[in-house]
């Protein structure tokens, strides 16, 4: 036996020892994320936190609060005049339901009543006013490196940890998803699409000439080809990915998956979402998709964007209504999940095992600009709805006069404001995953976790 074979045998013996030892048992133990589902929402454009999660209703320092003059208040169900700013111009009364420790702006809509399910992060140091940079920072915890996204996004991370066994580990509808790094399982690659309906068309099949058995035979052969090509490749990951994705394909094109991508059927199955909402109507289908896909246990993570918050000019008047429509849908989502049985955990509800995070790239300036809008501002708020997080709780704050992030706690590098990286690390850490496996930056904020 030469040295090479000897080492191979040694490796084999080591593997055998591992297989029979505690390592395998540890791997076999159910993880903290098994049976959990994730919904990530990007409020794209940069939302105005002063009417939602971090309200400002007094003219103080730099703050020009939302008023009856600069905001369309008629559509806001929670708007109550709160005090005169100038003659004939009223600001709002903050929204704080009985029992709530959280204080909201008038755009919070029905979500205010779910205060006991919410964890609000205010005063996040986003350190950017660029859409691209802020979007990537919010989803990955890293700023853009030049034009390149340097890390995987949160949906890909959670899919990689807990979703590779699902038919659709991660579905991303215009969410800033990224898949970076050789160590991730290719099955966790987010399915990036611009709309749920378009996916259904790609999955349609006809038996006009060849049948499902014939197609399956082709797919199985190609999977074998990809595996064999991986063996002779210096870097086998691409071909291994092909092979794994081909195996997943057989499941996708049969069974209920295609129905899942039919907008009309989704709307019929989930009539509670407001598909006619003026601004967020199209986004409602994504909410319905998330529920149906989780109910059928086909996904692990659903991520999507809800746009329209980039209101630099007079379009700012609709900022409140846009937020309200989004928050109303999140409230509906919580209700639907609470009423829906978990697909694999007997006696449990989806609401007990679904974790929702809503982020935006930054917020808007505290001042109203000369065109009656608000520009980009380097502060942020985020929302988490998760049984793993302490609820009815706000973490962090922004300066009362400048709306800039204030130090929220002690981190390994000193006292400072939390960043999106800390939020993401905390989210990942809540499921027993070491954030360093995926993230360069960010610390787990233990005080917000149960």
């Amino acid at each position: 036996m030469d040295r090479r074979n000897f080492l191979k045998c040694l490796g084999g013996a080591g593997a055998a020892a591992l297989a029979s030892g505690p390592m395998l048992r540890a791997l076999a133990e159910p993880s903290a994320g098994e049976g959990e589902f994730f919904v990530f929402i990007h409020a794209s454009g940069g939302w105005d936190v002063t009417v939602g999660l971090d309200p400002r209703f007094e003219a103080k320092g730099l703050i020009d609060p939302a008023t009856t003059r600069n905001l369309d208040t008629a559509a806001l169900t929670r708007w109550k005049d709160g005090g005169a700013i100038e003659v004939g111009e009223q600001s709002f009364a903050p929204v704080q339901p009985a029992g709530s420790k959280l204080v909201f702006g008038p755009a919070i809509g029905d979500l205010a009543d779910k205060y006991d399910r919410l964890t609000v992060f205010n005063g996040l140091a986003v350190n950017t006013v660029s859409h691209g940079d802020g979007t990537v920072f919010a989803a990955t915890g890293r700023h853009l490196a030049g034009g390149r996204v340097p890390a995987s996004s949160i949906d890909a991370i959670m899919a990689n940890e807990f979703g590779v066994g699902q038919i659709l580990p991660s579905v991303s509808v215009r969410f800033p998803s990224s898949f970076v790094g050789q160590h991730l399982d290719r099955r966790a690659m987010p399915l990036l699409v611009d709309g749920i309906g378009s996916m259904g068309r790609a999955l349609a099949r006809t038996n006009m000439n060849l049948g499902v058995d014939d197609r399956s035979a082709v797919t199985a052969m190609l999977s074998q080809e990809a595996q064999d090509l991986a063996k002779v490749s210096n870097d086998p990951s691409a071909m291994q990915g092909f092979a794994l994705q081909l195996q997943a394909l057989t499941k996708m094109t049969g069974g209920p998956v295609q129905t899942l991508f039919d907008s009309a059927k989704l709307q019929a199955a989930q009539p509670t979402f407001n598909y006619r909402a003026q601004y967020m109507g199209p986004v409602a289908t994504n909410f319905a998709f998330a529920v149906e896909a989780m109910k059928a246990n086909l996904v692990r993570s659903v991520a999507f964007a809800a746009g329209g918050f980039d209101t630099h000019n007079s379009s700012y008047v609709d900022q409140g209504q846009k937020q309200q429509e989004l928050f109303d849908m999140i409230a509906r989502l919580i209700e639907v999940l609470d009423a829906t049985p978990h697909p694999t955990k007997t006696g449990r509800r989806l609401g007990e095992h679904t974790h929702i995070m809503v982020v935006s790239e930054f917020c808007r300036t505290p001042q109203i600009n000369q065109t009656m809008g608000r520009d980009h501002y380097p502060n942020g708020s985020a929302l988490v709805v998760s049984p793993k997080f302490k609820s009815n709780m706000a973490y962090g704050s922004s300066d009362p006069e400048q709306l800039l992030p204030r130090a929220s706690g002690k981190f390994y590098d000193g006292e400072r404001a939390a960043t999106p990286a800390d939020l993401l690390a905390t989210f990942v850490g809540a499921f027993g995953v070491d954030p360093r496996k995926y993230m360069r930056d960010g610390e787990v904020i233990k005080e917000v976790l149960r």
Partner: protein
Amino acid sequence: MKRLTLAAMVMLAACAKDPDRDAAEEAKNNGVPSTPASDLPGHGSLAQDNTTKEGPRLLPAEVYIQAYLDIFGGLSPLAAELASRGKEGSALFDTWRDYLASLGMPDYEKDISRVTQTNAMMLATFERVGIALCDRAAERELDTTPRPALATRTVFGFEPTAAAPTEAEFAERFDVMHRTFIGYPAKLAETPRTARFFELYKSVVAKHTEKGAPASGLTPANAGWAAVCYGLVRHPEFHTY
């Protein structure tokens, strides 16, 4: 006891084969002796690049969409779309626009970046598009009487055998298709590709010949060739470089 058995099995598996040695042995048997680069004239003083090379990368979507158009008749995108839809509407094909995102094309209007790695939905779209293109090509080039002139066929550039092809007959015809789609002779493939595709061909023909086989628009032999086309147009080497 179970643990010991498992350990023994893993050790045996690890010791069983040496692919390097097998390759060297095979090369020796094929009469192609291995020669170190330094022994080649003029190579003694040349530095050798021993760094690990990158793995195969996904082609930009524009490239394989153009390849689809070229291979399946040299049509414009709109003409290819009309031909693929045929009289069956969207049974086989929808519109290119429906597939652009899942094929990996960027959409700057919607701020969706180019997809540089495959995902399951992309492979599903490869299948959807590949089926349409291959089915229509089989209908056009194989399933008509008389068949179009050989020189005008873009996918099935050979005459099918009257009876079931032997392995050699299949290999000769498969090679034509392999060169069209993958760009090199099938015998140079690093996998037992010809044999695999022959098995696929035979299994599809058998399925379509057996009693009670579902109705098909293609004859059993042509269905077999269509399946071969499915395999090539979706092959990992077709989409990577």
